[in-house]
């Protein structure tokens, strides 16, 4: 009979600097059972949203759920409240919001790709991707005032308009980034460490993606056609050149490819946005207090983010429910680990691009 060995991964592990703990049972280094513990940093933000802060302050509060995708969190909440208040946005506001969401996706995907390279032992590629990511964060700072933890979204619009000079900077920076991403695409497709080694590793089939309700790049890499940018009319993505990126491999390599092609699509969308930015106000006054219930879904870099907000016309809301992408992805992640070699676990984990800050909101 084979000997079963228990091996923990996390809660602090060199391959992922986030507090998640996987408990593997292995037979001869093949993972046969997995347990997951995600509850190390629960902060009680949903409770704080209905007891500590009035609704107008909540875009700042929910932006603290996650430093990386703060824009998507504050925007999802804001759109829900705006629906309840029957607020009609301007095209300029929609475009500026989409611009920041897509810049966020570019730098978030690049962070994931850099860690995937690092887990393959490809330190030079890690540094190259991180260096190429810096100008995108500089753009976000030029537009919003912050590199991370943006407080850009306001109820009724965005806090800062974009100047013509910054708009030109966006185009120039993204034009310079595009050939770098195309080079990365070639490296991640053909380099042994990044491509051949990862094909067939960390597999999630289309069938499994459906069974586990997988979302985001994880689902699209398995051929499941789902993207909230396609499925929601809250932002006019069809006007700026959005295309769903699909792969069929379902492995780490396919996830890398999805993220790289999505970066290229986001670059085109951001350029389209600033080159066709409609005239109008960037921030409108909004009256009333939220009453009723609204659900908003947005495509965060890691997949579908959902906010459900209920209010009864008071200063404090009755409920703010936050469903984050990694929260939905945990059951699929556990299944993907099963049958994999333990040695591949760090690389598989990095390819999920999990965000524990979001999950344990």
């Amino acid at each position, binding site marked *: 009979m084979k000997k079963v060995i228990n091996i923990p991964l996390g809660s602090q592990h060199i391959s992922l600097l986030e507090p998640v703990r996987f408990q593997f049972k292995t037979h001869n280094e093949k993972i046969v059972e997995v347990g997951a513990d995600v509850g190390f940093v629960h902060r009680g933000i949903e409770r704080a949203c209905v007891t500590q802060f009035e609704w107008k302050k909540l875009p700042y509060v929910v932006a603290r759920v996650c430093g990386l995708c703060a824009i998507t969190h504050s925007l999802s909440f804001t759109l829900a409240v705006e629906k309840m208040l029957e607020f009609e946005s301007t095209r300029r506001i929609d475009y500026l919001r989409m611009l920041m969401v897509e810049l966020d996706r570019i730098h978030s995907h690049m962070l994931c790709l850099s860690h995937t390279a690092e887990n393959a032992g490809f330190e030079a590629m890690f540094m190259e991707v991180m260096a190429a990511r810096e100008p995108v964060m500089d753009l976000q700072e030029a537009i919003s005032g912050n590199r991370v933890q943006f407080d850009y979204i306001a109820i009724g619009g965005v806090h800062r308009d974009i100047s013509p000079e910054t708009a030109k900077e966006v185009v120039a920076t993204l034009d310079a980034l595009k050939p770098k991403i195309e080079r990365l695409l070639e490296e991640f497709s053909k380099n042994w460490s990044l491509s051949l080694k990862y094909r067939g590793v960390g597999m999630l089939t289309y069938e499994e993606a459906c069974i586990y309700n997988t979302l985001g790049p994880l689902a699209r890499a398995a051929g499941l*056609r789902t993207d909230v940018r396609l*499925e929601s009319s809250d932002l006019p993505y069809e006007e700026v050149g959005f295309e769903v990126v699909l792969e069929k491999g379902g492995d780490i390599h396919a996830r890398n490819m999805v993220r790289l092609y999505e970066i290229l699509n986001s670059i085109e969308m951001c350029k389209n946005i600033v080159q066709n930015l409609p005239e109008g106000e960037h921030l409108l006054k909004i009256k009333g207090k939220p009453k009723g219930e609204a*659900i908003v879904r947005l495509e965060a870099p890691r997949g579908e983010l959902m906010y459900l907000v209920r209010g009864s016309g008071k200063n404090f809301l009755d409920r703010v429910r936050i469903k984050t992408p990694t929260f939905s992805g945990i059951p*699929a992640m556990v299944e993907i680990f099963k049958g994999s070699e333990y040695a591949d676990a760090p690389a598989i984990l990095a390819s999920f691009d999990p965000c524990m800050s979001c999950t*344990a909101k």
Partner: protein
Amino acid sequence: MKKIETTLERVVKTIEEFYDRYEWHFLTLNGIDLDDGKIELQWIFAKYGAKDETVVFYCITDYETEVPSIVKLIPSAIMGEREVVDMFGLTIEGIEGKLYLSDDSLKTPLKTMGLGGCEV
């Protein structure tokens, strides 16, 4: 958003009849404290590839009645169900809480929310 009322007795059968895993995905189970010893439970679904198609099955129940689990139908529902057990102290058939909270944490932090925003 389409809201469909159901009961705890019927909810599993209702979802079983409705759910096609190639068409719909389960977003999460949500609870909302109603401030009178009751809680509204919501099972939220969205359709793959379709614009703005969200369906919410909901029912109002008390805190004492055991809630049926839909994990056998939808394995990914385990996360939402564990979270509701943690946050509201409900009993869900076969589901252990302790997703986020440890033994020394504040118990059922979302149970007493409908009090005009007062800290309880």
